[in-house]
């Protein structure tokens, strides 16, 4: 699975489930999910489930920080590190 495919899946997940659109322009890859009100606490937990179900990525307790999860770019960087480890 290449990183670009993961990016597209993540974008579709956020766009359809939290912004309720398929318009790619509605989400910039560096937009903060929390500052933009795109995800709330339940949304973050759903995102963690999605990472597990779609990419078999387990997020540890100490990794649950906005630096890892708060935008598409942050997620891609985080997933890249996880896949390398």
């Amino acid at each position, binding site marked *: 699975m290449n990183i670009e495919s993961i990016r597209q899946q993540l974008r579709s997940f956020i766009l359809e489930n939290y912004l*309720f659109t398929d318009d790619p322009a509605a989400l910039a890859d560096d937009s903060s999910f929390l500052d933009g*009100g795109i995800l*709330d*606490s*339940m949304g973050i937990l759903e995102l963690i489930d999605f990472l597990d179900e779609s990419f078999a990525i387990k997020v540890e307790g100490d990794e649950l920080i906005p630096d890892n999860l708060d935008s598409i770019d942050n997620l891609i960087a985080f997933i890249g590190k996880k896949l390398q480890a």
Partner: protein
Amino acid sequence: MCGIAGILPIRRPLEREPTLRLLGAMAATIQHRGPDGEGFYVDEAVALAHRRLSIIDLAGGAQPMHTIDGDLCVTFNGEIFNFIELRAELIGKGYHFVSQSDTEVILHLYREYGLAFPSYLNGQFAIGLWDKREQTLILVRDRVGICPLYYSLNPERLVFASEIKALRPALSENLHIDPRALQDIFTGWTCIAPATVFKGILQLPPGCILTLNSLGEMTQSQYWDIAFPRAREEYDQRPESILVEELHGQLLQATKLRLRSDVPVGAYLSGGLDSSVLVALMHRQTQAQLRTFSLGFSDAALDETSFQQRVVDYLGTDHSRVQVDYGQIAAQLVATIWHTESPILRTAPAPMAILSQLVREQGYRVVLTGEGADEVLGGYDIFKEAKVRQFWARNPDSSFRPLLLSRLYPYMDLPKGDAALYLKKFFGVGLETPELLWHSHLPRWQTTSKAQLFFSASFAEQLNVLRADDYESRIATLFPAQARDWHPFHRAQYLEIKTLMSGYLLTSQGDRMLARNSVEGRFPFLDHNLMEFANRLPPKVKMKAMKEKNLLRKMAARYLPAEISQRHKQPYRAPNVSASQDALFGGELGDYLSEQTINDTGIFDAKKVAFLLKKARSGKPLNTAESQALTGILTTQILHQQFC
């Protein structure tokens, strides 16, 4: 509850027969409010209608009622609880009464005190009073908005009624949804009085009196408002033990007045502190076995049956309970919106209609309820949340202070890791502006306003044109100038009473769901004497540390077992739409959300709504904002089809 309606032509006479027909059509739409009789008064200058629910002076209280000389005529919805005392006082002043009803008191009280008369009333009321000599119509609404009163004014006439649907026969055009009012509902749950969700239809704000004469000259003034201390010395500083006694006396008197009726009075019993205290006080005063009524939910997380049963066993009431499931709520929703006359963001009104139906089926038409206790005595979590956020704002960089919020909402799912940072993102709104009068409500508005994401581009464009006058600036107009000197806790109480309580709990979830089944609700915690006492209490007495309704708990301990008197507040909640999706969207209700219907209505973006529905149907739980949005969209669609 009764239903009232009327017409005042401006600079032109009324024709009797067409006016009677129109008045009859208006009154017929609100027959549910008063199935026991109807009455009309028409002369050249005014037309008044009344639908009666007989509760006091069953034989002699027919309306519209006029003075013997014919100079004054009144149509009135509600109850004047202190009518016995007022009657005696007026007889002492030489007035002659021909009935035993509270309605007649209004006529003589106006003659004695003029436009100051509402200040003498202890009750819940919407009044239309015609002063023939002055050729002036006087509309009055009770202090907190228990009884509804709507009107529409154009250069030719004013029409008024208890419900918006009663105005429609008198309107020349269809109703249209007001974009700004809908945006307000999709922000703070309610319109901001005097607005309603329909263009050109206004409500008389609570505590207000409006006059309009036959020349079209209008005045409006406020005869009562909630007031809080502006300085420490204005607080009631008596010892807490004395304050508990005072609260006991006030609540006892408020309950006693609200037991005045010529038909039996029952009570709603949720199993919480407020309704349980009321039932205990009723029991003490009547010594008879009481009839109580409650809801049970098939969803265990919402169900309070075990607490209800504990109180029933303890006080020995004759209790009836109706079990409500998702399917019943879905089946009730279209009829519910016909009565709320407003979009709603939660389904909670629907079960309240099922409950009032139970009351009526059991032969009762009056119930006491605990509504208002949380607003008046400080019971809601939003007051605690506001207290923590004020505390946090004094040290915004603290990582400890926001953690108090997770203790307040233990059921909130927070990611582990840096919990304080997440809390800051969710509740930190306005952290830098704690001086805002509406600071307490910013997180709630932020969550609810996510529903606006679903507005269509054309609807959003209409809102852009109106943006100069935004929500917060209009909320600001609700506050009196002295609110700047109030404690933040009191500002939060004021806002909660002025918006959610008056605009939703007492109307969509209160009057409308009661009146729909011809039942009258009475609310001892909203007695204005009790409210004025409670408003002088220091915030730390109302909420001790994080213990809500401190005084009421202490008072209740003498009447109720500790598991009830010390029980944590569980707000009344009904299942949300994500939980009830199969029942909601399987049949008729799904049609309201079809792409075609959404596009025809034009308010929402069909594609976005489709994505939201897809998420709801996937079986994943919707979060609070999404659930509110889905309910709001569905009920707006229903409302539009019914009224526009």
